[in-house]
């Protein structure tokens, strides 16, 4: 297992969590504060599992905290997208949409699940009917239907909004640590598969949340449409870095394009494609982010907290 690759997964999640957590006590509405904190906690949880694992694979005795707090920006392997400033709420939602449209298929692959199951049970990407479902209000009959949907919790049935995220413990694979969850032959592959199987369900929720907001802002008021389009345009170049590895551009577009269409937003043209994050060449923003994140830990070398 390539350590840099694991660090890439873990650093994406860590830096995304750090940015999302900046929204605490600042969200457009109190309910959204709670939702963003949930997503930040998911990303942070995934980051901890991935960095712990990366440290073990590396074999130099570095734990999650050594990796998070004692590396410099040039040693971080996250994509540029996640380190960009939060901007306004539209920018944050566009970042989350683009990131989760990458993380969902990525984790699905790492978990050894088929592309079809990519759809998850919540925010299905490629299927036409799923896309419509994603945006639409919950149907009346959903109210009485939870039992049926829970019964097949492991299958890739149509998404049931009312089960949103409640089925974590009933999913097909347990949390990290279960040794028999992964399909890959090696123990290492199994470990990563177990982490990914947990993170994948969370990503499905993140995708749903960001898609819901992208649609509301895109198709809301004149101002919100302008802001959402500006955010999509500004961030679009950074999405190429996401789709230069495990997740193909087509796969990613098949998730994002229906959301943009539903949101009455223009899909920007492909062009400038900044990169470098995976080899440690970042934007100016990362060093500041790490400076803040690491300041206390580094001020007390060797201390326990």
């Amino acid at each position, binding site marked *: 297992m390539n350590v840099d690759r694991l660090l890439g997964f873990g650093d994406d999640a860590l830096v995304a969590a750090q940015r999302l957590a900046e929204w605490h006590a600042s969200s457009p509405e109190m*309910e959204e504060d*709670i939702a963003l904190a949930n997503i930040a906690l998911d990303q942070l949880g995934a980051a901890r599992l991935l960095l712990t694992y990366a440290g073990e694979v590396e074999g130099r005795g570095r734990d999650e905290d050594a990796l998070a707090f004692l590396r410099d920006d040039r040693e971080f392997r996250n994509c540029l997208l996640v380190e960009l400033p939060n901007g306004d709420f539209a920018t944050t939602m566009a970042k989350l949409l683009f990131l989760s449209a990458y993380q969902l298929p990525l984790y699905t692959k790492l978990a050894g699940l088929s592309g079809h199951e990519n759809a998850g049970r919540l925010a299905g990407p490629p299927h036409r009917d799923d896309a419509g479902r994603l945006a639409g209000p*919950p149907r009346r009959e959903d109210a009485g239907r939870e*039992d049926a949907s*829970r019964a097949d919790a492991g299958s890739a049935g149509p998404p049931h*909004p009312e089960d*949103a995220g*409640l089925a974590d413990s009933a999913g097909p694979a347990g949390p990290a640590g279960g040794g028999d969850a992964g399909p890959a032959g090696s123990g290492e592959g199994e470990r990563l598969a177990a982490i990914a199987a947990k993170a994948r369900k969370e990503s499905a929720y993140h995708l749903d949340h960001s898609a*819901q907001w992208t649609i*509301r802002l895109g198709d809301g008021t004149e101002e919100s449409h302008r802001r959402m389009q500006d955010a999509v345009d500004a961030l679009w170049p950074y999405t190429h870095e996401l789709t230069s590895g495990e997740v193909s551009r087509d796969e990613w577009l098949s998730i994002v394009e229906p959301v943009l269409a539903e949101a009455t937003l223009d899909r920007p043209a492909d062009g400038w494609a900044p990169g470098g994050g995976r080899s440690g060449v970042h934007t100016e923003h990362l060093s500041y982010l790490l400076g803040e994140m690491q300041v206390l830990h580094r001020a007390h070398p060797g201390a326990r907290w």
Partner: protein
Amino acid sequence: MPDNDWPLWEVFVRPRRGLSHGHVGSLHAPDATMALRNARDLYTRRQEGVSIWVVPAAEITASSPDEKDAFFDPAADKVYRHPTFYDVPEGTQHL
């Protein structure tokens, strides 16, 4: 109410399979889809439920406390609706 205020929704959660949905509280959301999601984040952060209903608070018709006697007193003398009305011989099991 100004146009941009989000309406109030009442939230009902089924805590476990086999139990009824119970009222847990309320929240504000722009529409049903978001209300459901907000309810998930707000009222089931600690895995308190397996299913959620959200209902626009404005759509709930409630009995008035003034009607209490007319609504509920007629049931007060129908004790045969309650299982404790019946004498069960000592030693009977699983009834």
